[in-house]
């Protein structure tokens, strides 16, 4: 294998980008687990839904061909702002994130209200099976109502919403605009969430609920509100990862959530499920390990190496890298 510093760096950047996506999705698993001790198997489908909603938003706001179709002419002035240059593009992406995050966030709240809350005092397997049911429902809904085909994440004429070509080259290392965008956005979102949970009043309520739900309720914390909030934030972050995934890799499909879902869940377990910083650490670690395994061993070994890391972590630190808090609970 050819080895050079620039090659190592480029594969590491690929890995950090992938890790950023994993971390965003892993937060959704870990938030819900931390509060409800439940694995939300429908989370990977919310990631998928985020990809589709984001594509719809990008098409409505940033595809001139859509504005030309009958009855959609009112979009033209809005689009002219979003297509007006760098500021417009940044606003376009931000708008896609906000729309996708809000829509999917409310989907998460809705799912919790109708599929999980009625089962909150049932045996632990019941909500798990309900989650699998929601997951199958969402996949089939996308298959039937949207398309069975793999859809390109681009305008009707085939051009990307964000020019994804190499942005600049430092010492032979190519970095694309999309990679910078993903890494920066995921780090900012993770920092904001961390501050939110550790510094604000409602964040403290979340931590209290996570430690002891009944006691928190007795102290005047509105448990249902805290849980609903967790089911809004997690899916919203997953949806943003879904939009990124579409823009970065170039397509969406109804069953696209499955593999990233499993990987992100793995990342959450590596970091210590229930621990926010652990999910971020696990996500980045898994992304970098996968990328380097693919780059230095073989593409066929990337999943093997990723899961070897999981096994090693579970052998030497069963609670995950940062996961002491969980050990008491189980």
């Amino acid at each position: 294998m050819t080895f050079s510093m620039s090659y190592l760096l480029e594969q590491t950047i690929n890995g950090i980008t992938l890790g950023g996506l994993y971390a965003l999705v892993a937060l959704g698993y870990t938030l819900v687990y931390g509060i409800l001790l439940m694995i939300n198997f429908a989370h990977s489908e919310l990631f998928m839904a985020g990809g589709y909603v984001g594509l719809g938003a990008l098409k409505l706001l940033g595809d001139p061909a859509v504005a030309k179709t009958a009855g959609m002419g009112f979009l033209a002035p809005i689009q002219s702002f979003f297509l007006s240059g760098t500021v417009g593009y940044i606003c376009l992406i931000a708008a896609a994130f906000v729309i996708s995050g809000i829509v999917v966030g409310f989907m998460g709240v809705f799912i919790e209200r109708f599929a999980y809350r009625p089962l909150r005092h049932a045996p632990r397997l019941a909500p798990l099976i309900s989650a699998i049911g929601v997951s199958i429902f969402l996949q089939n809904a996308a298959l039937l109502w949207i398309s069975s085909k793999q859809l390109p994440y681009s305008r009707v004429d085939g051009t990307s919403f964000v020019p994804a070509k190499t942005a600049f080259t430092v010492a032979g290392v190519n970095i694309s605009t999309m990679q910078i965008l993903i890494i920066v956005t995921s780090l900012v979102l993770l920092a904001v969430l961390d501050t939110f949970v550790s510094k604000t009043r409602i964040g403290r309520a979340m931590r209290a609920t996570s430690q002891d739900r009944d006691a928190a309720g007795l102290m005047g914390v509105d448990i249902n509100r805290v849980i609903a909030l967790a089911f809004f934030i997690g899916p919203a972050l997953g949806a943003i990862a879904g939009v990124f995934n579409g823009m970065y890799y170039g397509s969406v499909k109804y069953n696209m959530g499955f593999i990233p879902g499993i990987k992100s869940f793995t990342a959450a377990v590596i970091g210590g499920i229930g621990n926010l910083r652990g999910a971020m650490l696990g996500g980045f670690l898994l992304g970098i390990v996968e990328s380097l395994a693919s780059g230095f061993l073989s593409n066929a070994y990337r999943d093997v190496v990723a899961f070897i890391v999981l096994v090693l972590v579970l052998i030497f630190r069963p609670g995950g890298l940062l996961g002491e808090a969980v050990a008491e609970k189980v």
Partner: protein
Amino acid sequence: MGMRKIRTYVSLIAVLAAVALVVTGCGGTTGTTDGGAKAVTVTIGIGAPISDGAVALGKGMVRGANLAVKQANESAEIKDLGIVLQTVEGDDKGDPTTGGNVATQFTSNPSLVGVMGHLNSGVTRVAVKIYNQGNVLQVSPANTAVDLTQMGMKNYFRVCTIDSVQGPAAADYAFKVAGKKVAFVVDDSTPYGTGLADEWAKQFEANGGKVAGREKTGDKDTDFKALVTAIKSKGVDIVYYGGIYNSGALLSKQMKEGGLAVPLMGGDGIFDGEFIKLAGAANAAGDLCTSIGLPTAEMPKGQEFIAAFKAEYPGEEIAAYDAYSYDAANVIIKAIIAVAKEMGADKVTTTEGKKAIIAAVPSTDFEGVSGKVSFDANGDTTNKAITVYAVGADGTWAPAAK
């Protein structure tokens, strides 16, 4: 007592429902000839992915076969024999298990003597054995896996050429015509993709080219970023991909976006407009693929076929296998005619008739839309033409410069 009665009714209703299903599923129209004598209805099954899988190609198979049957029914030859041909569709969804169910359904239809299908080699591997037991002829327009004609199934024929012809032809083009010297070979870990990529790599090296690396991916993969960085470090001038358009298009897109500006080449699995749509026309420009046979428009009977197609299916585009399905259906129709002439029309749908139809196919020899249609001892076509296509600046596949 009452319980038992209810149970009897339930089972009776179930039996009736099953019978009704069979009748509506397989039954068909019986026509009469001009003379008033009862015509013999002979059925041809069309086994194709219609609701799931490579639907764009499967719908083309249905179009091609139905066109051939319609033309045959209008011909004096069929009318004089007192035969009415009809088709019945079986949706295999590109899935071997579903394909097996379709095959069972087809073989249990007494008037069904031949099947035009299937698209996927994996589906045929299951279905062909069921047809063999039921003495049903199978002619595939699209199976390219090499081993299908080496399974000892005397009822199986195909009008398209195979991967051991397609792979080397593509490698010859890449090395000799396109002048590519260093390649990276990727496949999607399916029997189709791996087989094709192996054949390509072998011939490329035999020509004197260098295969700088070989990697496997999954057939549903979307992330090729790390792979692209690895390929880039090898300094290659072409990437060969054995697989289908869904993942192949994303590999091409991520190659071009990751600064690896060399063409991606693939087989007939990427020969579809969806490839260009998914990759984006600007990224796909210059990508190459091979497909079996020659472009329909250049064939002696091509213009005639295109005109008939446009008249029958206004507004629809000819996909990769329409013409092959038309030819494959005609292989079955010609065998039916030969047997009807020899044994009489009423004997065609008997077991002896079905066996005679299978026995009649090896002597097939006619000028089809895809070229001369005849078979070797294994049931493979003798027409081994391959065409190389390239994505042009206009964002469509067009025959590449020779």
